[in-house]
């Protein structure tokens, strides 16, 4: 039986519990490394591989949804030294899919990265792994050793003349390193402070050389794209939104966990797969794409399908596919207070609007939550947001502002209540019950 519930499972089809099934033998038994072998045997050109990926309309799973094939095509052909980098710095609150991909199927990412290396002409790759998942990093290192022994990595791969080696780089606690240029700085042994763009990584990337960066899930999808063909992959999803995607469902549902569904699946279906609302309580709101995405109230999200376009139309983002589900026990001021703290804590400190602005935003929300809000605070929050968003070096500034804007758009009255009554709309005991810490036993959750 599959480890998790899924519709049309590709990425998760081979997932099995515990230590079974992640190794190279099992991966090969599932058809793993076939795509790579075929590319090498049939001597597909780099352009052919890129064309296939373009056809699939595989959009980057890291959050921005940028078409992967197009990104690869930006890599300069002639450059002698190039890199492929995988972004497993999964730190966006709500997102936990990449960890499971590396836990249950690390070779899919390795194969995807080798194919990418082949397509863009890079001989070296790095996988940047989130600091907090050290056990996963160790497993990935084991998988790399397996792949090296099996001849998939190193010089002259499978006798084809292709050289590609891959290494893991462990992060150590900085959300900002998920931002691709901060990640590159971090691999270079520096603080993770994002670089100003242009130049983009495809021109000046790791160690100053052209670099392609993709999310773990993006790379994991590549072998499937190549195996089934670009158009078949596209057809799994919906136009402009190829394939299946992993959704990390967290919060107040009965079975939090990862669910793989085709792009375009109704949100309601996902909620059902996640076991419905915990304790049968009422859905209040959902943050559909990781903590940086604006919150959507229940009625809006229930009308959405899970793809870039539908969620964007509803005023939020699909982002990394992290679905944070909140029921009526949640105080939205408190929720925003915690998120604002996160962006304040994680700002790299480099550019003025983010360094100073995230702290200010948090201080105001904190005051409101603690009964010291002022009526003018809400407009101040929006105005400051306007002075941060779009004015920073990287998108963390925007990421800090979007949740504020979303909350004030849909739940302004709760904030006003706080300011007026100097207390929370949701009674403390109700909030406490909502977390289920004191009532929930081990059972229930997925995996």
């Amino acid at each position: 039986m599959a480890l998790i519930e899924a519709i049309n499972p590709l990425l998760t089809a081979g997932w099995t519990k515990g230590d079974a099934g992640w190794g190279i033998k099992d991966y090969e038994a599932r058809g793993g490394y076939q795509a790579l072998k075929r590319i090498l045997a049939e001597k597909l050109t780099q352009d052919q591989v890129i064309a296939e990926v373009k056809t699939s309309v595989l959009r980057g799973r890291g959050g921005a949804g940028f078409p992967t094939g197009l990104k690869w095509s930006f890599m300069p052909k002639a450059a002698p030294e190039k890199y492929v980098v995988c972004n497993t710095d999964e730190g966006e609150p709500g997102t936990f899919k990449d960890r499971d991909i590396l836990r249950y199927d690390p070779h899919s990412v390795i194969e995807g990265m080798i194919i990418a290396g082949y397509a863009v002409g890079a001989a070296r790759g790095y996988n940047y792994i989130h600091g907090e998942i050290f056990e996963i990093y160790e497993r990935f290192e084991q998988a790399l050793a397996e792949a090296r022994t099996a001849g998939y990595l190193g010089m002259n791969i499978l006798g084809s003349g292709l050289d590609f080696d891959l290494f893991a780089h462990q992060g150590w606690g900085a959300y900002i390193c998920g931002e691709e240029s901060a990640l590159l700085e971090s691999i270079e042994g520096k603080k993770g402070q994002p670089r100003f763009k242009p130049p983009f990584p495809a021109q000046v990337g790791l160690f100053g050389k052209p670099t392609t960066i993709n999310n773990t899930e993006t790379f994991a999808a590549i072998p499937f794209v190549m195996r089934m063909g670009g158009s078949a992959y596209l057809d799994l999803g919906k136009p402009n939104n190829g394939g299946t995607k992993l959704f990390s469902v967290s919060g107040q549902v009965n079975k939090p966990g990862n669910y793989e569904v085709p792009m375009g699946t109704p949100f309601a279906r996902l909620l059902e797969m996640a076991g419905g609302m915990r304790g049968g309580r009422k859905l209040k709101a959902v943050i559909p794409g990781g903590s940086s995405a604006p919150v959507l109230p229940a009625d809006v999200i229930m009308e959405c399908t899970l793809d870039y376009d539908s969620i964007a139309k509803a005023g939020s983002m699909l982002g990394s596919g992290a679905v944070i589900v909140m029921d009526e026990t949640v105080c939205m001021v408190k929720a925003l207070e915690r998120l604002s703290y996160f962006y304040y804590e994680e700002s790299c400190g480099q550019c003025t609007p983010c360094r100073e602005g995230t702290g200010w935003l948090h201080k105001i929300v904190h005051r409101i939550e603690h009964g010291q809000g002022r009526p003018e605070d809400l407009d101040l929050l929006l105005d400051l947001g306007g002075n941060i968003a779009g004015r920073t070096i990287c998108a963390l500034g925007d990421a800090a502002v979007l949740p504020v804007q979303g909350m004030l758009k849909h739940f302004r009255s709760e904030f006003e209540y706080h300011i007026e009554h100097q207390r929370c709309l949701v009674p403390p005991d109700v909030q406490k019950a909502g977390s289920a810490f004191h009532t929930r036993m081990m059972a229930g959750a997925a995996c």
Partner: protein
Amino acid sequence: MLSQESLKRIDREVAKYPAGKQQSAVMAALRIAQEERGWLAGETIEFVAHYLGMPAIAAYEVASFYNMYDLQPVGKYKLTVCTNLPCALSGGVHAADYLKQKLGIDFNDTTPDGKFTLKEGECMGACGDAPVMLVNNIRMKSFMTPEEIEKLLAECK
């Protein structure tokens, strides 16, 4: 300053990067140094910087930027609890409160016996398993209900 074993581990990290790019290994080297020494004193950071041929302040920038490096001594067991929103929705904050009460300390404090240090963590990328916590940065504990917390504390000898 660092043991041969640690230096060997650092050398293995250095080998992952192109020639002359040994600074790339600074994060790993500091992690390894911290593991051996318990925390990163100034002289430890300086040693690592020296070993990798980089300015000490550049290594300090790194050590102070990433929040899993400890620039102050910590207890034998450092417990980091994720309290971010997705975790909080499933008890992250309450698990932290439980630990605070149990250990009689607040975040960033160490128990008088030097055994436990409690830290507030940011998203660990495991929100589906909430409450989650890290033990000494590297061991992740999932679904930390009161019983599981008790079990963990009992395991920490």
